[in-house]
């Protein structure tokens, strides 16, 4: 009798303890999460024409390794599964289905490329699996009404185009703009934003639009054509190699317009230096991340921490490659999102946490730029700051500018 009573008391107290913990931490899991692990899916171009972007995936992989070494997220290790899609949308559909249906990931994160993300957009939303912080600057990722499971990350190209146009209208007298544009979605997004920013009279302001294909060897003839129109503004919508060629050629033929260049090509090491510092003086661009090759940030605490992280977790990698800065910052935001989820690791909660950042600080973003999201605002970073090239570095000027995109 005594023993049974003791047993009874023990049982009651055990039950109390159990129910107590349950009340304290209601653990809820969807596919891809457990007491010990969080599975995150990713795909990017490790092979094929856009394989230069493959370093983003590698950088993110390194980030999760460092997180796991420090104990993981709320005691759970991150299992980061990254697959190669070769920048092929058809292949992307295949590997993402593998991630969602076979690997059963909690969410897909930073899948790369506008075509690839377009191909999986409907699928992810019909499966109700988060497609978070996609690596593309197209403006269509912030549409919570129709696609509540998809969110972008960087400021979109469209917004950036609007900002340049506004700056030109405010600062250049009688602007006549010559535009060099890469003939793809990246180029067209900028152009549309730019035209929108110029307003109704954009056809009068734009003197000439010269395009090139990524497979072209040079853009020299396009630059000569642009000069011949007598344009006094040059808007350079090109990827790094071509942007550098254009700047150099414009200087060679003694064309001295006001130059605007997209953020995509703002790297000092891979664009400005090859183009020649002398030729690049006065170029204006918009930035949201700190450039690792810009000497201005050499003593910056965050940059130093990043350098140390690179040395430890990405040994041998090129520290001048801004893609690693991008990878680090976007992985940090994902890290923060999962941390905020606590023990409720469900698809819905991941999305909810991603959509409730209030001025979240993210390392390596420019001072004054932070991440804010809400149930109706699916554009995490919406601010940029203009900067002008002077000497051997970018000089920030003006205010941090924010723009609501379409």
């Amino acid at each position: 009798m005594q023993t049974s009573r003791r047993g009874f008391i023990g049982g009651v107290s055990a039950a109390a303890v159990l129910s107590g913990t349950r009340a304290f931490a209601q653990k809820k899991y969807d596919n891809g999460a457990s007491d010990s692990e969080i599975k995150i899916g990713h795909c990017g171009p490790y092979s094929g024409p856009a394989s230069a972007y493959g370093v983003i995936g590698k950088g993110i992989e390194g980030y999760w390794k460092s997180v796991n070494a420090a104990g993981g997220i709320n005691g759970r290790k991150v299992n980061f599964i990254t697959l190669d899609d070769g920048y092929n949308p058809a292949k992307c559909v295949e590997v993402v289905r593998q991630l969602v249906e076979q690997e059963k990931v909690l969410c897909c994160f930073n899948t790369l490329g506008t075509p690839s993300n377009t191909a999986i957009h409907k699928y992810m939303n019909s499966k109700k699996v988060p497609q978070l912080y996609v690596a593309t600057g197209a403006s269509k990722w912030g549409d919570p009404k129709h696609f509540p499971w998809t969110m972008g990350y960087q400021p979109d190209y469209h917004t950036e185009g609007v900002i340049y146009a506004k700056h030109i209208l405010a600062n250049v007298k009688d602007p006549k703009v010559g535009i060099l544009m890469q003939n793809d979605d990246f180029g067209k997004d900028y152009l549309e934003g730019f035209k929108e920013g110029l307003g109704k009279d954009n056809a009068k302001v734009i003197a000439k639009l010269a395009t090139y294909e990524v497979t072209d060897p040079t853009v020299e003839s396009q630059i000569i054509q642009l000069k011949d129109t007598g344009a006094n503004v040059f808007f350079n919508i090109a990827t790094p190699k071509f942007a550098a060629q254009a700047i150099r050629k414009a200087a060679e033929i003694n064309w001295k317009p006001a130059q605007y260049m997209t953020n995509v090509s703002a790297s000092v090491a891979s664009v400005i230096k090859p183009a020649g510092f002398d030729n690049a003086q006065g170029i204006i661009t918009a930035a949201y991340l700190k450039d690792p090759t810009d000497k201005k940030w050499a003593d910056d605490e965050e940059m130093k921490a990043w350098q140390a992280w690179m040395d430890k977790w990405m040994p041998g990698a090129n520290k001048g490659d801004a893609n690693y800065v991008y990878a680090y910052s976007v992985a940090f935001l994902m890290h923060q999102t999962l941390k905020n989820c606590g023990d409720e690791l469900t698809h819905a909660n991941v999305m909810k946490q991603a959509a409730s950042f209030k001025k979240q600080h993210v390392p390596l973003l420019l001072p004054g730029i932070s991440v804010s999201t809400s149930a109706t605002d699916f554009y995490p970073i919406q601010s940029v700051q203009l900067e002008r090239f002077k000497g051997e570095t970018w000089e920030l000027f003006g205010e941090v500018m924010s723009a609501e995109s379409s």
Partner: protein
Amino acid sequence: MPPFPKKWLIVLLVLGFGIPLLNPLMPDVVSSYRLFLVSTMIIAAIAVLGLNLLTGFNGQISLGHGAFYAVGAYAAAILMDQYDVPYYATLPIAAVICFVVGYLFGQPALKLEGHYLALATFALALSVPQILKYKWLEGITGGVQGIVLSKPEPPFGLPLSEDQWLYYYCFIVMVILFWISHNILNSRSGRAMMAIRDYPIAADTMGINLRLYKTVTFGISAAITGIAGALSASAIAFVAPDSFNIFLSIKFLIGLVVGGIGSLAGCVVGGIFYVLVDNSAQALSTFIKNDLGLQFDLSAYTVFGILLIALMYMMPMGIVGGVYAAMRSLRRGSKGPAPSERPAVAASKPAASRQGH
């Protein structure tokens, strides 16, 4: 090669129809993802079949079948997107369009032989993604943005999931196309095609119209590959120029060579190989790096290449050719000295295997 045994064919067909029905019973083994993967294999097999008719049975080398695949995919996508044509009706239209394109391309190709034809088709494959982006066509092709489509839904209220229905859709199309190809090849026209491949001058002397046969074969081949493209547009539910890069054409050729040139069964094997190896090469390379602890970074394509070289070395006639050869030598080994004609067949294997399929 000997014709595929009928008994086995029926078994495979029954399995092909039966296994997907197990999806609701065994969702982990017969998963929707695996059904989708098999559907992409079927699509690849159809594309390889188109190429095989041209290269394997008619002797015209093409490095540009990705172009016809793209034309088929875009034809289907534009019909569905702009003209609300139901997905199943896009197949014959895409086939006709690709037949015309292939037939027209076959005209100048008549003047080109061997490597020169390969180069011309290579140029075609390179130019198609650019043409799709061209601004005059942008209105209908969607330019670089591509076209987003809906997945085919099961008809007549059949209790099938989308992936099950997609599988059956592809499977039925594949069976029909292989049956048609089989009949073409076993007809007078088929024998004429193969005669042109083996001895063009003799074929000409026999009264075969080389010009007609070569261009029509080009057209049929393009049509079949175009149907594969149209199926892929439905399966992926999205088309964009980036999906049809030059690697696609090369992968079809790899599928053809690996499966077995001049063999219908080889097309299926080639399609399966191409999807399977493409997918597992990366898994294999991470396995080598992480689990075997080798310190060098093998890219997925390196692994793919090594596998390919090994395979070509061991089975120069492709997997189907290799399996037949192995079966022959096994039979010879177990039954003692083979009948007199068997070694002769084995010795003249390349020639023999080119005669039939």
